[in-house]
């Protein structure tokens, strides 16, 4: 289907061309930026930074273009699916960007499977510039732009303290553009004149058919969950929905019906049905986030385990007011104090737990739980999907 990210029937170059048509030649970075502005494209890696602005901010000189398919978020699988099914859209964007910016290095950072697919696809065509392939290991903070640039430069895949922005002084001091692979694929469609671009969603949790779904802008959480097999909107409203992954937020049930309610973040919708307790799920996530710190910045390294332990104590019931105060004070000492967005995203997630799961926190304080038998162990279904 023309204009859709997963629109081609298979990953071959022939199918790509017959579905989307050839890649048009654009005159300048500015022409592409204007098209991205008109289509309202923003980053699909989670930060949602306007793509046109990022492109315009790229400094002059021997630029480095990096496609980021690291996808460290455990609940996200859309980048892997995109590389598997539509590698040519990503190659289109890299080819176009290299031509327009005069970039002398074009790199891809992704798991091995995605890299294999891309190089296989690149061998089918003659226009793609030489690609530097950098296999990612799947660590949670590895996907942060500065970590990706660092890895491509041959150093550790760790977030870097930046005095300068990547756009002007990134890999080896060169202007560097790090862009999520779905953003690049959207760019390839927009360059062909597609209007507002569709988005990919990784849907997981207590849904009959977990997986990656493509949807038009403005699609609601309820519509997406229905496509994943959840029969009734009522079922959604009675459960809990985590939007945006482990750095995301629990949303108010009534918001699930609103257009675009699944859009914040990198397209992750995780449904916790009545079979699981969202507070217990959140405690597991908090521990995962603590364990995912790169360990470089003290407040994140020591603060996130502290926050997770306090949050677990809160969820276990007991002195709720005291536990809550200590947790909130500790969270305030973590947010905004790292080299990357990990401490901030983790605290934002916990803030949404405190706001949206307040009722369940009170229930636990009384020794009750929305799912009685769930108190002991809460299985968090990630990549494996769900029952």
């Amino acid at each position: 289907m023309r204009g859709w990210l997963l629109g081609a029937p298979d990953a071959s170059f022939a199918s790509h061309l017959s579905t989307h048509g050839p890649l048009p030649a654009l005159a300048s970075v500015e022409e592409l930026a204007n098209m991205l502005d008109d289509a309202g494209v923003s980053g699909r890696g989670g930060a949602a930074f306007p793509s046109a602005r990022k492109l315009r901010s790229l400094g002059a000189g021997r630029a480095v273009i990096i496609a980021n398919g690291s996808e460290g978020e455990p609940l996200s699988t859309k980048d892997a699916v995109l590389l598997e099914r539509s590698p040519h859209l990503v190659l289109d964007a890299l080819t176009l960007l290299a031509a327009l910016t005069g970039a002398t290095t074009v790199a891809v950072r992704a798991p091995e499977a995605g890299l294999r697919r891309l190089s296989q696809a690149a061998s089918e065509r003659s226009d793609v510039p030489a690609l530097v392939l950098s296999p990612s290991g799947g660590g949670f903070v590895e996907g942060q732009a500065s970590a990706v640039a660092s890895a491509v430069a041959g150093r550790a895949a760790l977030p870097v303290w930046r005095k300068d922005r990547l756009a002007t002084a990134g890999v080896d001091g060169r202007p560097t553009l790090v862009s999520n692979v779905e953003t690049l694929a959207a760019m390839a469609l927009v360059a062909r004149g597609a209007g507002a671009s569709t988005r990919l969603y990784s849907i997981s949790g207590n849904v009959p058919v977990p997986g990656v779904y493509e949807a038009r802008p403005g699609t609601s959480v309820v519509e997406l969950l229905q496509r994943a097999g959840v029969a009734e909107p009522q079922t959604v409203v009675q459960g809990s929905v985590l939007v945006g992954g482990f750095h995301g937020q629990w949303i108010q049930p009534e918001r699930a019906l609103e257009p675009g309610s699944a859009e914040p973040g990198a397209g992750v919708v995780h449904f916790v049905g009545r079979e699981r307790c969202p507070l217990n799920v959140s405690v597991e996530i908090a521990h995962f986030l603590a364990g995912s710190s790169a360990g470089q910045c003290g407040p994140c390294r020591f603060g996130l385990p502290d926050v997770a332990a306090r949050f677990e104590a809160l969820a276990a019931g007991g002195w709720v007011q005291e536990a809550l105060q200590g947790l909130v004070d500790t969270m305030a000492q973590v947010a905004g104090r790292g080299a990357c967005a990990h401490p901030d995203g983790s605290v934002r997630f916990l803030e949404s737990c405190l706001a949206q799961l307040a009722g369940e926190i009170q229930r636990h304080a009384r020794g009750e739980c929305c799912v009685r038998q769930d108190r002991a162990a809460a299985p968090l279904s990630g990549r494996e999907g769900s029952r």
Partner: protein
Amino acid sequence: MSEGRSGRGPAERTLSIDMTRCQGRGVCIELLAGRLGRDQWGYPWGVDAQGRGSTEVPLAPEDLQEARSAVKLCPVSALRLR
């Protein structure tokens, strides 16, 4: 960083703490006692709301001399004046 510069005069500067280097030795906290305190793990952070939740600590003109000393004396070179 997201905090705006509005309301701060041209003479005012920011002390930038590189948290990937900082080991909480505390030289800067002693020199800039009015600006920096210790968080619960011993790392420097702003004592007022403006410097909290950030690694960019706003300075007043009268802090500049101590701030320069802190930059020079930090044993792990984690500080910069901006």
